[in-house]
């Protein structure tokens, strides 16, 4: 059976070159970067080289990069750190209804601490409008957090415009670039971000490492306490192998981003067009062109998504329904709901996210097996016969 992995927004395999680099810091070079001796110095040097690479990857200075354990930690650090540091300026935060739980739930927890949060609506393509951000700003607003690209539907938000607005109004701006980093250009100056979150395992680095960009001088307070590492912004012995891997992954992503992105757009469009052509009662979720190069999200009427994911899995194709991070029981995606997608269709959505390892043959295989699968499940479905 052919094995096809179409779930790169959930996580990616580690790039072989990244793995090779990383393994050198697992089987050797194990020093603690805080140690004065040669083991420590070797580790510190590797870590600082990785910091340089990551900073180049987002257009920042190395001292503006703090290594973390992943996207969730970066989001928590950015939002809480900015909120606490600016408490005396105001208590209002603006975000969107379609952010990842790492942002949404952090905002919700801040609401319990006396902050007030506006969750902006999105249009039917999952897009936050600049106007809605402008309208939501009041004189208590201290932070705006809008994601660069959405994980469920792949919509790319107008973050440079939102960033400019925030800067003009003297409000801090955070963007969750977990899905965009390594796939489309991410530049903190173009976005005018004060904080930007990335997560290694979404772009061929391993799980357990990420980074937060903190603009030099941005008012922010650490949310973790300890031995002073990362210039006291994120204490704890540093994950050197992971950090080295993150640096390498950023470097590799930059090297062929343009070519790889065009290649993925082509495969992505093959899937979208192929499915729409072959399978009736199918809908594309997300923006038709302001979408991630690797991102497909389709709703198949009359079918519950999990059963389709399971069918695909049994034929060797890994896909997902909504976000892999959502708990198993949450059936209709809050992102699709916010986009106004009817409940039935929201529960019928299949996410296929492509990556470096995918080929045209993978797409052909999918297009070969999917129509019969959908047909089979529809014939079994209690909601199908009414329309047939």
């Amino acid at each position, binding site marked *: 059976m052919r094995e096809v992995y179409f779930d790169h927004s959930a996580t990616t395999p580690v790039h072989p070159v990244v793995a090779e680099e990383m393994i050198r810091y697992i089987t050797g070079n194990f020093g603690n970067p805080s140690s004065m001796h040669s083991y420590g110095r070797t580790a510190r040097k590797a870590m600082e080289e990785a910091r340089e690479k990551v900073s180049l990857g987002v257009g920042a200075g190395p001292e503006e990069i703090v290594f973390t354990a992943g996207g969730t930690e970066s989001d928590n650090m950015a939002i809480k750190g900015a909120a606490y540091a600016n408490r005396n300026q105001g208590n209002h935060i603006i975000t969107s209804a379609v952010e990842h739980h790492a942002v949404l739930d952090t905002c919700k927890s801040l609401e319990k601490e006396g902050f007030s949060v506006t969750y902006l609506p999105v249009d039917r393509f999952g897009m936050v409008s600049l106007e809605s951000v402008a309208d939501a700003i009041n004189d208590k607003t201290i932070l705006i957090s809008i994601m660069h690209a959405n994980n469920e539907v792949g919509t790319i938000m107008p973050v440079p415009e939102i960033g400019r607005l925030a800067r003009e109004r003297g409000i801090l701006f955070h963007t969750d670039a977990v899905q965009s980093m390594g796939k489309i250009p991410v530049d903190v100056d173009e976005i005018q971000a004060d904080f930007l979150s990335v997560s290694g395992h979404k772009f061929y680095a391993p799980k357990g490492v990420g980074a937060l960009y903190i603009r030099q001088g941005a008012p922010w307070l650490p949310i973790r306490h300890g031995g002073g590492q990362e210039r006291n912004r994120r204490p704890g012995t540093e994950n050197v192998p992971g950090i080295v891997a993150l640096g390498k992954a950023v470097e590799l992503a930059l090297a062929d981003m343009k070519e790889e992105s065009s290649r993925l757009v082509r495969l992505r469009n093959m899937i979208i067009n192929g499915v729409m052509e072959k399978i009736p009662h199918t809908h594309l979720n997300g923006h038709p062109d302001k979408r991630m190069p690797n991102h497909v999200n389709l709703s198949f009427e009359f079918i*519950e998504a999990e*059963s389709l994911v*399971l069918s695909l899995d049994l034929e060797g194709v890994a896909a997902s329904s909504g976000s892999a991070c959502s708990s198993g*029981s949450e059936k*209709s995606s809050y992102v699709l709901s916010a986009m106004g997608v009817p409940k039935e269709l929201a529960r019928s959505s299949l996410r296929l996210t492509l990556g470096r390892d995918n080929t045209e043959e993978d797409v052909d295989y999918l297009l070969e097996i999917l129509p019969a699968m959908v047909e089979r499940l529809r014939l*079994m*479905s*209690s*909601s199908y016969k009414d329309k047939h």
Partner: protein
Amino acid sequence: MYSEKVIDHFTNPRNVGEIADADGVGEVGNPICGDTTKVSLKVENNVIKDIKFKTFGCGAAIASSSMLTEMAKGKTLEEALKITNEDVANMLDGLPPQKMHCSNLAADAMHAAIENYKNKNASS
């Protein structure tokens, strides 16, 4: 996460469909996830002669529906009503904890179908 039995019943579900001239029909929605199952019955001498289902639901829901119809077929209505969702899950060699609610769906739909059959007969 699913047992081989679940996968088997998901891949080759038994008794899929609708009985054209059913004696009883029941359709229920799962209060937890909103998935739905429809069960139709053919009853003779108080025995379930035929039973079919259609499900809009997850893999566990489909497998449970399939298993339940297998278990119910040939049983008297009273016996069939005694089948619990735990029985269904057990016959499937278990379900993951977060999927236990899925096995309710089929049993509930059959209960509704039997109810429907009884109501019809009572009124005739």
